[in-house]
């Protein structure tokens, strides 16, 4: 089975095959694409695993659901979107369309309280410009534009308590 793993903005195709009761992982950068025996053993209910890739040993912690995993390996954390071949085919059958929305929508990366809004609908903003002040943990944090654009919608008002992932401002 082939797995499409989107990690750090790049999509990698990993194939897992069973041979003689072991799992081999196939990818061009793994042993020249011949395949390497891999083993993932659950250690704790809380999502920790021991991973062997060939003889290499790595402690892994996986949180999140199976499609959107957060993996911690050797102190680095990666967000991985995973789909397998079957799921890709199933989605293709549903037709194209709702691929990935987003674009100019800025979401809150943490819960907090909106203290000040520095832009209004119709304003032109440059990448890096402060648009909003969000307070959390006793610090005031400036939320800056991630792209150049025009403010299309402001989803919050000063005093709004936002959760992680809530929409703040849409640019276009």
């Amino acid at each position, binding site marked *: 089975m082939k797995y499409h793993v989107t990690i750090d903005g790049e999509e990698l195709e990993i194939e897992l095959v069973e041979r003689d009761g072991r799992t081999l992982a196939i990818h061009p950068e793994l042993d020249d694409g011949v395949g390497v025996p891999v083993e993932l053993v659950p250690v704790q209910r809380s999502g920790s695993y021991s991973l062997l890739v060939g003889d290499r040993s790595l402690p892994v912690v996986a949180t999140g659901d199976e499609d959107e995993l957060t993996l911690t390996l050797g102190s680095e954390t990666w967000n991985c979107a995973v789909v397998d071949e079957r799921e890709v085919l199933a989605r293709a059958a549903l037709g194209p369309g709702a691929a990935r929305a987003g674009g100019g929508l800025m979401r809150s990366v943490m819960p907090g309280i909106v203290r000040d809004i520095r832009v209004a609908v119709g304003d032109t903003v440059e990448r890096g410009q402060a648009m909003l002040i969000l307070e959390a943990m006793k*610090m005031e944090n400036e939320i800056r534009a991630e792209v150049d654009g025009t403010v299309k919608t402001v989803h919050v008002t000063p005093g709004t308590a936002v959760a992680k992932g809530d929409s703040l401002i849409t640019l276009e």
Partner: protein
Amino acid sequence: MISKVLVANRGEIAVRVIRACRLLGLASVAVFSDADRRDPHVRMADEAIALGGTSPADTYLSIEKVLNAARRTGADAVHPGYGFLSQSAEFSDACAAAGLAFVGPSGDTMRKMGGKIVARREMQSAGVPVVPGTLDPSEDAAEAQRVADEIGYPVMLKAVSGGGGKGIRRVTRSEDVAGAFERAASEAVTSFGDGSLYVEKCIDRPRHIEIQVLLDSHGNAVHLGERECSLQRRHQKIVEECPSSWLPDETRAAMADAAVRGAAAVGYENAGTVEFLVDQSGEFYFLEMNTRLQVEHTVTEMVYGVDIVAEQLRIAGGEALSVTQADVQRNGHAIEVRVCAEDPAHGFFPSSGRIEHLELPGGPGVRLDTFLFEGQEVTLFYDSMVGKLICWGEDREAALRRTRAALREFVVAGISTTIPFTLRLLAEPEIVAGHYDTSYLDEHMERLVGHGAGRHRLAAAVAAALVHRERARERVHRRATPAAARGPSPWVVHGRRNAMGGDR
């Protein structure tokens, strides 16, 4: 002598104080907000009193509630930790009035040394060099701008009652004073209940070096050398070390002398820290005095072998210091890393959520001061620091290597932390060489907040595919089987397989 200590704080520092109580055989009383009911300081203390409420103002900042808890439990001493009421002269006075030993200086001393402006005057008259700047608080932005124009840019705007990097802004141009003043004052009101600010000249590329002092009621005064805290982000210390990687011996001696002299001049009693800026030429300037225990006291403890919190309790109980200046010997090098619930990749935004998985480092030279536990909900009500890792080595290189090795062992899943960021930071050649000043982090931040070398990216992708496969199989299995007939999950089976059989 004291016998029961109320710890007017939370988090790792409350745990730290309870440990010192146990060392000295003193009973301990925890107080807690509704959000902290399950926290380690509550579970470790001998007694625990609910303060009722969750906001700092309703709980750890409420002098009335804290004193009621002390009265109810018969505590005879109060340790304020750091933050919260630790620098409140009013609280120190209120404890004294209630017949409680306050573990820190008197209200009068705090007013002299805690208020930054007054402290500057006091130190100047004790012959300690201070940073050029105003000797009066600026009431509004316009006045601050006038003063700043006079001193010359860049300048610092600082909260009179500030600390911990809050209520502080660097300003390089006259026209930016107004905006910076407003934000710093607003932060200062939120954090310290006092929005007044003062203006100070910026020292160019300084080192932040501080001297730990201990003074008891018997006239004994001891310094425990210096700590270097130049690795700062937004004036918030991130990594501290003891000794400094750079300080010339004569400067160290002169600074220690000035610190003890300054503290003695104002009749300071208990543990305190005199902070200095040291410029490239080795000139040092008094910055402020922290009239409380500091977060980074740990590196001094590792290198000097003195339990600073235990000394604080001894002093508060009227005992003499357990050590003299001749007793305290520097031994090796220690580094402290602050572990914060923040996401460096997103501007160090505070990160909240449940601790899904936790692994703590250990072994030789590794000390951990934390209150994290698996299943804990990290909230945004309080400071984002969730723990401190302190590593000792026979020299700076060994301490750095230990720290990096221990950071690799330290796994916190469920929230973002500054662990990976710090690991990259401590591998920077300039940091390893000890060539850095307070501007280092701001100048090199961009490189440090990324993903680094991405050594394990492919392995992470393989792991993701394997976890996906495992969970998809489990889901199918779960759907296909009624709950009662369902076998145990794979990890339980694995565990059982490992248990004793008779097949030895």
